[in-house]
């Protein structure tokens, strides 16, 4: 009988695999907005998304910025969104972490240099959106052990952990050298991974939820809907 697997077990394992693909843990997202002056984007003006890389500990993941970029690019209207890589390259090296302005007022001083202003004007940049924050996993609990041998292997146990994603977007107006406000997004959820031979991850996708929350609110503010 070795090597023979009951049909019922196969269905159970297949069902678990399909469930793992489809299932994701619950996520709670809270989006807050503190915008004093709504941006007024004219035709031909662009918005730049930048991650704040001056923090020694927290650095926004490239994947989050890519997600945000995708959501803003998909918003209504004709607002042009410039990616971080393009902007940093076009104005190299003035937005590297050593030189990047830390206050909206400093941008005005930077743009007083004619060669930098010429470049910024050519890009049509009106607003800078600084994104800061990251996702992490805390409160890890449970245990799982895996063993492998040429004859086979598997894992047994249960793990759980909390996923937290905290991001904020600060909007700067380059024309008036002032900060317009902040939008923040906090997402929390608990992930679990039971294992009966095969680990089944049921992940709380907080980063994606934060991206959707922050991206949609940012899109609403930039397009004048909020």
């Amino acid at each position, binding site marked *: *009988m070795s*090597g*023979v*697997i009951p*049909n019922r077990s*196969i269905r159970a394992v*297949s069902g678990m695999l399909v469930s793992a693909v489809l299932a994701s843990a619950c996520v709670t997202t809270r989006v807050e907005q503190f915008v004093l002056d709504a941006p007024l984007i004219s035709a031909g003006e662009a918005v730049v998304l930048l991650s704040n890389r001056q923090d020694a*500990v927290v*650095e926004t*993941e*490239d994947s989050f910025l890519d997600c945000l970029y995708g959501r803003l690019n998909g918003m209504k209207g004709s607002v042009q969104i410039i990616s971080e890589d393009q902007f940093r*390259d*076009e*104005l*190299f*090296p*003035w937005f*590297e*972490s*050593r*030189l990047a302005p830390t206050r909206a007022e400093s941008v005005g001083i930077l743009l007083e*240099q*004619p*060669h*930098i202003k010429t*470049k910024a004007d050519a890009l049509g940049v009106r607003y800078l959106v600084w994104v800061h924050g990251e996702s992490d996993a805390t409160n890890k609990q449970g245990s799982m052990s*895996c063993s*492998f*041998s*040429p*004859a*086979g*292997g*598997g894992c047994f146990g249960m793990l759980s952990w909390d996923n937290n994603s905290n991001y904020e977007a600060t909007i700067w107006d380059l024309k008036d050298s002032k900060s317009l406000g902040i939008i923040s997004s906090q997402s929390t959820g608990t992930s679990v991974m039971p294992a009966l*031979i095969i680990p089944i991850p049921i992940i709380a996708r907080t980063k994606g939820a934060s991206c959707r929350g922050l991206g949609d609110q940012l899109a609403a503010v930039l397009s004048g809907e909020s």
Partner: protein
Amino acid sequence: MKSSLHHRTSSYWPRGGIVWYGKLFLLAGLILVLSGCGGTVAIKDYFPDPVVAPLPYRVGVYYSPEFSSYGYHSDEEKVNFELGSKQVRLFDKVFNAMFISRLAVSDPDTSQPQPQLDMILVPVLDEYAFLSPAETATNFYTVSIKYHIRVYSAENQIIGYWPFVAYGKNRGGSMSGLEPLGDATVTALRDAAAALVTQFRRAVETEDWRLPGEAEQESS
């Protein structure tokens, strides 16, 4: 009946059933272990042209063979990569943008004076170092590159010494191998460009650099 059942199950599981899956797990485990074993780091060599107004100086630039062919090799860390050509490319771009003209010259310590130049610059890499996420208990690879620029007069007399340190960091993932180290190194090179177009530029304008004697005292 047995053979019929076995035939039916093999339509769901590959031949060998759970034994095959065990081997798959073993292979996946081996790949995970080997992915943390180091190797050659790929460093991108694209650097944009710096946006800076040129200073009215004609400079000569000399890259020593140690600088232009610098490679980092560590058997202990199992990390190897070539940095020399990348940093030459970056420094060329920076000096091209910073000065009205740049000329590649021979070693000023052994060549004839070049009166058509205002000064000769010799970049020197003193130390490349990095820390992995495990060493810093963070999620980042951090890189520091210690340089100094030796400044010579057109008469090949050393007149100044300007040290600086460039930093870079990049998020390291458990499955991303050494790619984040390469990206952190590129970030450090870009930071070097930022230091050159601002702080070194100011030093050139005001001749505010250390004298050769001070440099010797510092290194001793």
